[in-house]
């Protein structure tokens, strides 16, 4: 009798902590936002957290291409083609025409090209304050814990979802972001025995999840939909370390 009671108390406490940390459980909190049920189960409240910062690691341009496409797919899922986005970066390499395939309307993205890291950080913070935006994507080489915390505080007020693309992977430090992702390309999926390059397929790793657990799965992009092909390394919720 002792054990289940303890469990209930701990669960309640955990939910209270989540509330305090800005992860507000909504009435429809179990509803999947991305349509990627298995992946989303690893997040607190079993749903993809919006109104927070997500961190993506990509060391090679190939990874950046996949990450951009994945983010486009996620944003489209969240905002149903209606969002207005800001993409802050160092160089203008993203090709809007190529993004259209992943659901996003490229003309609804405003690109801001800045050179200095300091300026990018400043612009990111300013953009995250703007409640009318549906998403802010920022290509940053690195970010300190304090800087990430500052951005996190900004989005807690404005409820804008931020995506940080980190390109410097040698020095990965702790950040206040809700999740750390890594997306790598995998050999494409061909339909039947059709020749040529098939549908895009990625290895999506959730390296760190705040109040959730890490995961790894293979995701494809088919007919305008993200879909999970297989999963691995998913740990049950009880193994989590709170706050990591």
């Amino acid at each position, binding site marked *: 009798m002792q054990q289940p009671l303890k469990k209930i108390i701990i669960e309640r406490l955990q939910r209270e902590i989540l509330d305090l940390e800005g992860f507000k459980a909504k009435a429809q909190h179990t509803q999947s936002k991305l349509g990627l049920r298995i992946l989303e189960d690893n997040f607190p409240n079993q749903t993809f957290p919006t109104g927070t910062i997500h961190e993506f690691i990509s060391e090679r341009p*190939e990874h950046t291409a996949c990450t951009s*496409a994945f983010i486009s797919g996620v944003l489209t899922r969240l905002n149903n083609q209606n969002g207005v986005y800001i993409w802050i970066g160092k160089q203008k390499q993203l*090709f809007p025409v190529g993004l259209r395939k992943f659901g996003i309307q490229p003309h609804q993205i405003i690109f801001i090209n800045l050179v200095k890291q300091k300026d990018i950080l400043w612009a990111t913070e300013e953009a995250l304050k*703007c409640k009318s935006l549906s998403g802010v994507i920022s290509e940053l080489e690195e970010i300190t814990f304090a800087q990430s915390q500052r951005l996190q505080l900004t989005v807690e007020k404005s409820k804008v979802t931020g995506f940080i693309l980190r390109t410097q992977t040698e020095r990965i430090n702790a950040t206040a972001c809700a999740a750390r992702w890594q997306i790598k390309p995998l050999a494409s999926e*061909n339909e039947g025995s059709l020749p040529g*390059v098939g549908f895009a397929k990625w290895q999506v790793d959730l390296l760190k999840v705040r109040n959730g657990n890490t995961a790894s799965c293979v995701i494809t992009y088919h007919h305008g939909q993200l879909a999970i092909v297989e999963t691995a390394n998913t740990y049950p919720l009880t193994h989590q370390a709170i706050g990591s």
Partner: protein
Amino acid sequence: MNKRYAAIWFPYLLTDQMALKQKELLGQAYALIAQERNKQMIVNVSREANKQGLRPNMSLADARITLPSLLTFKFHPQKEQKLLKAMAEWFICFTPHVAVNSPDGLFLDITGCTAWKSEEQHVEEIKAHFAGKYHVKIGIADTLGAAWAIAHYTKGQIAKPNEQLQHLLNLPPKALRLEESILQRLAKLGFHHIDSFIHIAPSTLRRRFGDEINLRIGQALGYKPEAFEPIKEPNPYEERLHCLEPIQTAKGIEIAIENLLEKLCNRLQKDDVGVRNAKLSAFRLDGKLQQISIGTNQPSIHIKHLFKLFELKIKQIEPDLGIELFIMEITKVEELPKQQETFWQVHNQTDLGEIAELLDRISIKAGKNAIRRYVPQEHHWPENSIRTATDLKEQPETEWPTHKPRPTVLLNQPELIQVTAPIPDYPPMNFTYKGEIHRITKADGPERLEQEWWLSDGKHRDYYYVEDDKGQRYWLFRSGHYDSKIAAQWFIHGFFA
């Protein structure tokens, strides 16, 4: 194009003004006097006094002999200047170029102003405006000199283009704005009208009367230039803030900006216009002028937002000893957009204004070119397939193309790679990019893109969409046709997701 000038003369400028304020003076003989050394001189006389033979520059003692009942008032030079300046600003409704001709006249450059009303109609309109208030005489001619002469020494007429000479002939030499000494010499020699000496050879005139007479004749007839210094057109949206104590701190400047913006934005709101460009001038104690200016993407009257834009630039002001005067000018206004239009497919809560304000702040810091939005352009050449949208509201004219594979990351410049390609028109077996060998396992293509000959020439490109053994996807192309003698050049142009 022939220039046309109008000279406006208020013969009783100050006395008329007094009569306007003190009705009992109407129809009275009175004069304004000023102390000059030990004499009291008349500066301005009323029309009634003028009829009795009193003229400016008479001594008061002489005037009293003719008219013992003359009323006198003190003359204030600043008052005259101020009044004349106000008159000049009123005349801007006729022409943007108005010059003050001290002490009691104005010049207007009316070249081209007859497009919608003839000169006669203009004259009538001016006369009607001043009727019963100020006496006004108007002369119109091709030159400032002739217009002035006509205004002062005739009943006021219009000299047709190139006819200024005929109008001048019967006028006294005074009409040429000559110095008193020259006038006296001319009178002594019996030249009472301009026609009696205007045809004399210039060298002879110069010998007798000096160079000025030729200059003035030339200016009146139009073959010598005369400077025309128009008054500055007043900016309708301008506010000034005088500081009791010189301001040296950034906080002080902030307060000043807020104060000025508040005043201006209230006025702008009434007129239904918003700020596109604004300029803040700070006048320092040592007389130096410091200026900062801002621009916005959309007309705005949002005080907080405009203040933020200025705030980013406050650092550029060096107050030094202190700033004593701030002037804020709205240099460009635009009509405020009617409430949210249906330009973007956006959420209900999306406020384009808020985004525009964010972009304003970023563009102040990073420059306008840093901010881009793209719309598709109907070109198949990848570099030309997008173009920058002109503003926030622009919608794509065509759908974004999705029928051909296009990479998500495109290199700004295609980069040369080493390939091993089996036979013409087949994708390469492997390629080396940045020292790394990629073995190709899957490929699509080729997709041949020809140069757009009307834009540029060069070789066509055969694009291949390839995937290597690690699952990474690339966009490669071969430049030009396959040639058995010369090795074909291969490039990498992008990365697929």
